[in-house]
């Protein structure tokens, strides 16, 4: 262990160490007493420059800050309220928000989680090298833990790991709904969670309290700060585009020179099976998610009896904000305004912060560990797409897919994934058929294998009022498909760049490198809310895709030419089929927008598109269930807004949008290959 930080300016291009060992945290828990574990001496080494404050010191520092005083004065002037009243308001916000990290509760949590985790998971695998790097990083500078967010389990598992390995327990940014759960909210609070309202909007005072709170935590080195840069739990198990508000707050102490450096630690948490899998699809299909309540949690105890396989927590390489922002932000711009006063980040800073967040997410993706099930899911969905509903066990009539074929394809895909740099958790000691059957057993809620043939199950139970039986059938099927799709999505980041390239080659029907590249950029742009692409890196992405496809023999490249090969047919068609559902879904939304009303709200659009998609599926014109997913629909919306094919008329809850139909049509045509892409940006050199 020499270097703690990446020494490269583009962390997303650095592969995690291949063959880095994992260590099972639960193994030790199964051998020794949980009480002993909970009561062990806990003596972590904190950040060297830490001011060792208590939780109430922290709050006092926030309330006394020049910044907050300034904003309170401003708000008082704006609203006409007295300063004292506004100050009280701020204090109230802080009380609602603030964490109250206590070692006793961490111990309680440690004990409880030991019990729960052992029931839920067979292994919790952690990379010990990552822990060592983290330990060093924590001492050197304030550390921001940045895990991906796929499950509620993410929430406390890092605290649990940190406690177990004698690292300072983090404070965690959490959504308000969690706080409202009786008792649990308080337990979370005392375990280090602090609570942030959803939809803060333009509440100036709230923003001020929150940002000062976060900045104070970072500046004083109070504890490592954990937050989910994706903002939300990903319902699709794909990475979400980063939310930047928190990111700005966290980075400000560095940009203003109040700390020497800040270390971002991307953490990849991967599950063989996600606890809330059945909820995911429902939420995407608009079946409201149950309110987070303590009773709900207790009722969910039945989950304790299920097999969720393993969980992998990969602590990525710590990223030095100082190094990464070096040539991107000129910190001198903060010299002319007192640092305690609010200052809008410059465009340069905004671009940099966004870039940094994308980098973190890419590093998270690269650290994900895939289970064989993710590969199986890719293949299952492709077969289903080809034979329409052929795989779905509708009334037990479908004959399904031959297990042997599936096994053989999975093994093929395994090699492809490995050659694309994926981390696979493929049990080496087991024969292939057992790996397959283990996976299918674990996911028996959606998949069955009868007499050597594999079938997908549809969702049971009531799915929504006001649907006819046929429509209801589609939604039920969609539930199952989207659940499997979520596991496919876990593997998407491995294939997406080569897939974009394959698509670009196919659509442009050209071997001219530049044509292909231009179309590739169009795809990156269009799908950049769907998949994570780092801004300004399209050329590297293209090169990377070329090199991967060349490596597996799917293309030939020369200086000016890129051609697909006969030999790579299988790879190419796999990759194309992988993208197809998204392309179909985007086209459905496009056609709705082109035919529908010009001005609408998001709330109006989602059911309308869903209705259209159901109709198309029923008539056999559409095979993509992605079109039903509200997530996809919203991504299309964001993409069109970004590409100026749509404008937002009002902001807030009830945003209205206006479609620029010709633009949407142009994009739809380009995606379908009916017209070449319009050059929006200047193309980097090839």
């Amino acid at each position, binding site marked *: 262990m020499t270097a703690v930080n990446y020494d490269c300016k583009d962390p997303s291009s650095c592969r995690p160490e291949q063959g880095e060992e994992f260590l099972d945290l639960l193994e030790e828990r199964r051998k020794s007493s949980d009480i002993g574990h909970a009561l062990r001496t806990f003596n972590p080494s904190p950040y060297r420059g830490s001011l060792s404050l208590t939780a109430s010191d922290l709050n006092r520092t926030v309330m006394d800050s020049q910044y907050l005083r300034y904003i309170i004065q401003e708000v008082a002037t704006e609203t006409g309220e007295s300063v004292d009243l506004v100050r009280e308001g701020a204090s109230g916000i802080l009380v609602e928000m603030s964490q109250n990290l206590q070692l006793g509760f961490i111990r309680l949590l440690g004990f409880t989680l030991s019990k729960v985790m052992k029931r839920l998971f067979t292994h919790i695998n952690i990379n010990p090298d990552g822990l060592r790097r983290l330990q060093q990083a924590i001492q050197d500078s304030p550390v921001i833990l940045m895990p991906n967010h796929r499950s509620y389990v993410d929430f406390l598992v890092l605290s649990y790991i940190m406690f177990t390995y004698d690292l300072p327990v983090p404070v965690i940014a959490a959504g308000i709904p969690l706080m409202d759960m009786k008792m649990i909210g308080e337990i979370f609070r005392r375990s280090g969670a602090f609570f942030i309202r959803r939809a803060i909007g333009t509440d100036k005072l709230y923003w001020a309290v929150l940002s000062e709170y976060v900045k104070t935590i970072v500046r004083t080195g109070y504890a490592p700060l954990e937050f989910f840069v994706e903002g939300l739990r990903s319902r699709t198990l794909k990475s979400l585009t980063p939310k930047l508000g928190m990111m700005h707050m966290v980075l400000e102490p560095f940009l203003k*020179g*109040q700390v020497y*450096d800040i270390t971002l630690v991307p953490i990849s948490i991967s599950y063989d099976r996600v606890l809330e899998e059945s909820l995911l699809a429902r939420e995407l299909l608009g079946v409201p998610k149950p309110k987070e309540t303590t009773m709900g949690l207790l009722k969910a105890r039945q989950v304790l009896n299920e097999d969720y396989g393993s969980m992998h927590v990969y602590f990525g390489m710590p990223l030095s904000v100082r190094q990464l922002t070096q040539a991107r932000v000129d*910190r001198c711009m903060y010299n002319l305004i007192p640092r305690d006063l609010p200052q809008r980040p410059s465009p340069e800073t905004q671009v940099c912060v966004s870039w940094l967040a994308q980098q973190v997410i890419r590093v998270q993706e690269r650290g994900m560990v895939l289970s064989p099930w993710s590969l199986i899911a890719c293949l299952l969905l492709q077969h289903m797409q080809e034979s329409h509903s052929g795989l779905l066990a509708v009334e037990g009539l479908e004959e399904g897919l031959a297990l042997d074929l599936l096994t053989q394809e999975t093994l093929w895909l395994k090699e492809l994934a490995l050659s694309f740099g994926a981390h696979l958790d493929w049990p080496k000691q087991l024969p292939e058929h057992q790996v397959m059957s283990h996976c299918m057993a674990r996911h028996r809620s959606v998949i069955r294998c009868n007499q050597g043939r594999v079938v997908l199950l549809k969702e049971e139970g009531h799915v929504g009022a006001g649907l006819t039986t046929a429509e209801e059938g589609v939604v039920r099927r969609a539930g199952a498909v989207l659940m499997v799709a979520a596991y496919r999505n876990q593997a998407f980041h491995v294939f997406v760049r080569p897939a974009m390239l394959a698509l670009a080659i196919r659509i442009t029907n050209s071997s001219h490198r530049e044509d292909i590249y231009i179309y590739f950029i169009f795809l990156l742009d269009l799908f950049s809310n769907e998949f994570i692409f780092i801004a300004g890196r399209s050329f590297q992405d293209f090169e990377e895709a070329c090199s991967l496809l060349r490596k597996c023999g799917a293309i030939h490249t020369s200086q000016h030419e890129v051609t697909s090969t006969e030999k790579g047919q299988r790879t190419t068609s796999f990759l194309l089929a992988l993208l197809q559902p998204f392309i179909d879904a985007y086209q459905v939304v496009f056609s709705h927008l082109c035919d529908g009303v010009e001005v609408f709200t998001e709330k109006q659009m989602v059911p309308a598109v869903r209705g259209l998609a159901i109709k198309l599926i029923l008539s056999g014109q559409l095979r993509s269930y992605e079109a039903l997913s509200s997530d996809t629909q919203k991504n299309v919306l964001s993409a069109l807004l970004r590409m100026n094919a749509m404008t937002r008329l009002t902001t807030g809850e009830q945003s209205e949008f206006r479609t620029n139909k010709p633009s949407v049509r142009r994009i739809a045509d380009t995606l379908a290959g009916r017209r070449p892409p319009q050059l929006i940006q200047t193309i980097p050199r090839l």
Partner: protein
Amino acid sequence: MASNSNSSERQRIAQQRLRIIAGHLQKHEDGESGLIATECKAEAAGSNGANKGTMPKKRQEVMKWNGWGYSDSKFLFNKKGQAEFTGKRYRLSGMILPSLQEWFENTFGASVKQHKSPATPALNPGALPPPNLNAAFLKDLKATGIPFSHEADDRVFRAHGHCLHEIFALREGRGFQRVPDTVVWPNCHNDVVKIVEMACKHNVCVIPYGGGTSVTGALECPPNETRSIVSLDTSQMNHILWLDEKNLVARIEAGIIGQDLERLLNERGYCTGHEPDSMEFSSLGGWVATRASGMKKNIYGNIEDLVVHMKVVTPRGVFEKSCQGPRMSTGPDIHHFILGSEGTLGVVTEVTMKIRPIPEYQKYGSVVFPNFEAGVACLREVAKQRCAPASIRLMDNEQFQFGHALKPQVSSIFTNFVEGLKKFYITKFKGFDPHQLCVATLLFEGDRERVLQHEKQVYDIAAKFGGLAAGEDNGQRGYILTFVIAYLRDLGLEYYVVAESFETSVPWDRVLDLCRNVKERITRECKERGVQFQPLTSCRVTQTYDAGACVYFYFAFNYRGLADPVRTYEQVEHAARDEILSNGGSLSHHHGVGKLRKEWMKESISDVGLGMLKSVKDQLNSERPKWLHSFQVSRPCVSRNVQAECLSTTQQCIRLHLTHCKNRCQ
């Protein structure tokens, strides 16, 4: 406080105590006052011959040719491995410093016995390029009778200041690519006028040379300069021309060095109160040219506050104001073109400067703080209440320990015991962490009663920030450090340790962040660049202002194992300067820009600002503008010096780097 109990006794003694600097300074046997009231007459001065100042024409006869200060004064480790300071000039002279070796070896990982890096013993004149002489110029020069020299050692001595790379090159015997071709010693203003006129006429470069203490590379000759270079040594222009007791001002020739000025004024019962740490050697003209700052600026002001009038010789002629009014509203103050011009606009020849009666009473003091943060908070409060003593400086823990390593051998067991007791009280009883605590050193000055009152006020404020009064000795030792630090660098260079200092000024709220970040940056840069040993980084808040403070850094490391230590050093210092600027610090508080920091000038003062400076320079050199034009077309700038760029013209040229002075170690 142990130190306060016998304070009345001390106050009595303090009357006799030498004033801060006087105590460090050389005694003068010749009783000549140096006060003359007549205009210089070249022949008279020439025939008189005897030099009235400390600095002879042949400086190398009393000064080191390849290091800091007097030849007879230096640190060395004696056969027993103990450090001592040789000579008789300073308070530390002839003393044994028992803790220095241990501190030195522990701090740098150096070994006094094993790893030596001695300097080349003597200058090799053969290695020097022969002088590039301009015969016509020389002919005219001879006719004037102004003394000059082409001797190798004279030329080399004036080819450098005291930047690390310059001293390092001398020690290695490498010398410099380009050195002055002629050294001239004008005796008065009129001599300078003649020299500049001749230089313009014969296309010769002039580099003014004052104290030679520049730490910005300003004295470096551009390596590819093809014209003959004249070093204009102002050391013989060292008289106080007159003294006006009604207005408390004195007219002084700009070549006078600080110690002579102070000594001569003291004889008349006056002082300037301007005491940059380099004042032993730096010159008045240099102070003006670099915007110098003195230790006691809180009472007396910085150089720009002290200057009432000045006379400057430029290629366009002499400029001066027509009266000596204390303040004027006559457009932007033209003095401010010269203050900080670093020799690019002209040669300062005479200055009228404020003087003050010698203060009745002086007292040192010190305060120990539990940590640097508390100390900065205290200094900020002192500045806020505008009650700063003549000098108040806050040294960080590293510098505090450094200062302690310079403690001379204590003879009495009792003193040892008292010291031990004090240490016990502070670290054990008060719970100060010896690796965190830091000390503020104080110097009060004025009439006795006010000093005592002032002292109480400052100690009361300090107490609010957890500060404990820690006696006069600690205070005084802090100031000694700043005078001997440059000598200590020479010691380090004997044992593979390179060292340098740099400074900045910064708003109060950023002081702590800047100090921490710069030190951290240095440590990390050293590591990244393969420095095998932990570097020493230390800082002190050395001046306070209403809106901010001046911060001074020391930086040193053991370079064993490095191929090119000077380059590594320069890279790290460059990074440190970037860090300072990113943290809201200035490019320089008082050292100046020179060639060392030229590259940051544009971002520091903006394009327009730089253009303003350039246009002033153009004006002073545009006697025949068509040549300026041809210069721009045909010749790229030969100098790296930012100020030099617009000064050179093909036919008529003078390049003036008036850097008589470094005012190092503020």
